């Protein structure tokens, strides 16, 4: 374990679902599970890094302090981070930076959410300075519209079919069958996906992830603390990289919530597109490449988006994702299983918890504890995640 790694001593989740309770209740369950997993008490924690939820009033904005208070004030330092769907990774990075800078040894990273039904709508009021409000008002450009634009390009450029997209759902549903934290635990057939109602053409209801309630938490520590606490670092999962890179001008792929891309008329586009660059930086920080990856947890907001990630992760060349999928390489038992957890397809999206949940899954996998969905011999995993407004994240977990 390198001195630049932080150890993941504990992971915990509250099952994903649609319970309609206060988000802090889910978070408490996840936090206590992570503490128990680490063999530590709440009073051992020195920093709480909360991933914010913006749809639950003030307690959601101050997630770090909300959970510090709910677990009982101990004088810990706190941080509350927001980066849309990448919030959880930003919270992890806040904890990691505080640990590596020497400000604390033991931190709790936590994200929890209660989500509304249906499409995510923008913040209330008439907000004519807010592009997120305007894209709904002027175009009705919901989140699935952007997913659909990306999916359509796969079809028209690379020959993806509705059945390819459906196969992602079928695979992830099968992966999630045995995951006790997954919301949906039943097999899905290709025919069910391709006959489900169209939401935003070419994507159908079963191509698009639901919104869920859920929570995930990590206890992360300095290498020194982990060594003292456990006697040895053998078999301890660790964070080998966290990338939170933003785009480089010009960003030429149309992303949520923009009306237009940047212009490449004057400045040439960067060699790597935005999402590939997020992953690239994670690989670089961890000193690995795609061939070193045993499994990946990626943000499958839509089935087609999972295919995009294969390419951003370097698991195949651009345009090669469908072939990789069809080969079975990304299914459990394949060369590099993707979303062994079941992914968003089986969980639904609980925004501030999601990027943390990906790290929980990789931790269970590299420890060999992913019962019923274990990737044999998993030692290195990578996550990939996209948040609107130029956020993305990629985390490398190794053992």
């Amino acid at each position, binding site marked *: 374990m390198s001195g630049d790694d932080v150890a993941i001593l504990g992971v915990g989740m509250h099952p994903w679902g649609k319970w309609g309770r206060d988000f802090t209740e889910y978070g408490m369950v996840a936090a206590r599970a992570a503490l128990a997993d680490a063999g530590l008490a709440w009073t051992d924690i020195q920093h709480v890094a909360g991933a914010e939820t913006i749809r639950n009033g003030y307690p959601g904005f101050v997630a770090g302090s909300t959970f510090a208070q709910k677990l009982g004030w101990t004088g810990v330092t706190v941080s509350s981070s927001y980066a849309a769907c990448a919030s959880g990774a930003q919270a992890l990075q806040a904890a990691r930076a505080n640990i590596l800078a020497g400000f604390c040894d033991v931190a709790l990273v936590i994200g929890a959410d209660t989500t509304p039904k249906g*499409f995510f709508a923008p913040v209330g009021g008439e907000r004519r300075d807010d592009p997120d409000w305007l894209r709904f008002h002027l175009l009705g450009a919901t989140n699935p519209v952007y997913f659909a*634009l990306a999916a359509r390009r796969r079809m028209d450029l690379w020959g993806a079919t509705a059945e390819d997209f459906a196969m992602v759902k079928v695979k992830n549903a099968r992966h999630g069958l045995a995951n006790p934290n997954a919301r949906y635990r039943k097999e899905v057939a290709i025919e069910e996906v391709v006959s489900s109602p169209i939401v935003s*053409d*070419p994507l159908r209801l079963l191509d698009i992830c639901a919104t869920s309630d859920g929570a995930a938490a990590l206890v992360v520590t300095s290498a020194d603390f982990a060594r003292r606490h456990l006697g040895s670092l053998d078999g301890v999962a660790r964070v080998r990289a966290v990338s939170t890179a933003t785009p480089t001008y010009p960003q030429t792929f149309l992303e949520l919530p923009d009306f237009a*891309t940047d212009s490449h008329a*004057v400045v040439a586009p960067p060699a790597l597109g935005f999402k590939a660059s997020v992953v690239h930086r994670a690989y670089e920080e961890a000193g690995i490449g795609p061939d070193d990856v045993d499994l990946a947890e990626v943000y499958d907001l839509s089935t087609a988006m999972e295919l995009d990630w294969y390419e951003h992760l370097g698991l195949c060349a651009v345009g090669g994702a469908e072939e990789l999928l069809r080969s079975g390489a990304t299914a459990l038992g394949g060369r590099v299983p993707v979303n062994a957890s079941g992914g968003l397809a089986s969980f639904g999206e609980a925004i501030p918890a999601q990027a943390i949940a990906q790290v929980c899954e990789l931790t269970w996998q590299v420890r060999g504890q992913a019962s019923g969905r274990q990737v044999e011999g998993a030692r290195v995993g990578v996550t990939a995640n996209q948040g609107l407004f130029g956020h993305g994240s990629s985390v490398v977990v190794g053992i």
Partner: protein
Amino acid sequence: MSDSGGDRAAATGPAEPAIDGWFTLGGPGADGGPRLIGSQCGACGTYAFPPRNGACPNPSCDSDTLEPVEFSATGTLWSFAENHYAPPPPYVAADPFEPYALAAVELEREGMVVLGQAARGVRAADLRVGMSMRLGVDVLFTDDDGVDRLIWVWEPVGGEGR
């Protein structure tokens, strides 16, 4: 901006843009059609849409003198989608809701992709990535004062009428 364009949609009552300063309605000058109004930096020449008030988006340029510029009226279809459920407010959906397409069009000179609704009657089945597209204007919704609120739309060149 408030000129009545010859190329305009089936608006019958009073009509106003749904947002000010983002597009023209067209008229007798130039080639007559409506245009998106973007910004162009006076220093480095880069483009931006929506139009912005200063702050050139090129990180190597700290110019604040961005000038309004009419964008190309034609481009190439980058991708498209079709909504089968009514978007939530603040979108003002027709009742009953009719599915409609959205199109993202790449403009060659500007080197950028701009999203818009597809013209009325143009559906996903009529579109494919790489097609030539042209800017139009149509009614987005009718507001509480009975004013038709207009928006830019993309339609295939030589394609469906409305």
